[in-house]
């Protein structure tokens, strides 16, 4: 039997996952080889269940300028996308283009969104007057991994109520695994 190309971390702490972060964390799917894996596509990992408090409001906990979120009303999903450099002209930097979709299994209401972009002024790149060297054919086909982390409450607008969601991600002609997340209010 062929070895699996990835593993899904179980029992990791999703409360430690940072929204809009483009780094991996303990909940991020793990490739069999970080740099040389033959896996190509999208993977997501999420908690089986989250419990939100009955009192309070997510609007009391606005996202920070970098998209980071805090407070009790969060639902974090961690993922990775591994694509060829040339895919969609993204040069392997695909995480900000990933679309996450959550569908309420009872009502079929759907919610979708991308990772928030930083709401801050960044320093302009220092122009050295150098031209970008075009990648070789070999580099164009090279698989590159980028990471994404979503807060479904803040990024997709999931309502604070009990439900069961089918969640998946898509980018171009790629789609991820589907996961089911149950939400409770207590």
């Amino acid at each position, binding site marked *: 039997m062929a070895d699996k190309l990835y593993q899904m971390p179980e029992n990791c702490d999703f409360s430690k996952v940072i929204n809009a972060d483009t780094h991996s964390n303990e909940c991020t799917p793990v490739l069999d080889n970080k740099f040389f894996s033959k896996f190509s596509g999208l993977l997501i990992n999420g908690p089986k269940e989250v419990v939100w408090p009955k009192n309070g409001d997510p609007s009391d906990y606005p996202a920070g300028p970098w998209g980071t979120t805090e407070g009790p009303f969060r639902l974090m999903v961690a993922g990775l996308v591994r694509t060829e450099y040339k895919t969609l002209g993204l040069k392997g930097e695909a995480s900000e283009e990933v679309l996450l979709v959550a*569908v309420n299994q009872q009502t079929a209401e759907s919610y*979708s969104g991308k990772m928030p972009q930083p709401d801050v002024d960044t320093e302009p790149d220092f122009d050295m007057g150098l031209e970008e060297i075009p990648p070789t054919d070999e580099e164009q086909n090279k698989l590159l991994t980028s990471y994404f982390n979503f807060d479904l409450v803040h990024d997709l607008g999931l309502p604070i109520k009990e439900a069961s969601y089918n969640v998946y991600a*898509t980018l171009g*002609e790629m789609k991820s695994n*589907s996961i089911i997340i149950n939400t409770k209010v207590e």
Partner: protein
Amino acid sequence: MNNDLTNKSENSIVIERLSTNGNDQNGIVLHGKFDLEYETSGLLVRGSEVLNHIILVATRSGNYQSVTPFKDVIVFEDDVRESDSGCGGVFNINLFNKILFDGPGDYYILCSIGSVTSNILHVEHY
């Protein structure tokens, strides 16, 4: 369409673009076909109600939207063939009647029902 679910052990949704014979004035019309097992497809509804649970996801460059195209549409029992273990059926969707953006571009379209997702259709609409 063959809606015989006998011995079907896999869930599937397949979407394709209906031919417009070179006339793109009608936009992008999709034809979909599904065969689902209740036990393994993550569905909480049965029979014709399944059509109300079809999700359409479309992206074009920076635009994206997910909608439930048949949420407020009356469906008839005949629209879905049902067996003891699952159901099957077909549907058609005129994309631009369902989403809030249109115009030229590369569209990536998929549908899902329960935990089952379709192929992703890439339509170059120019």
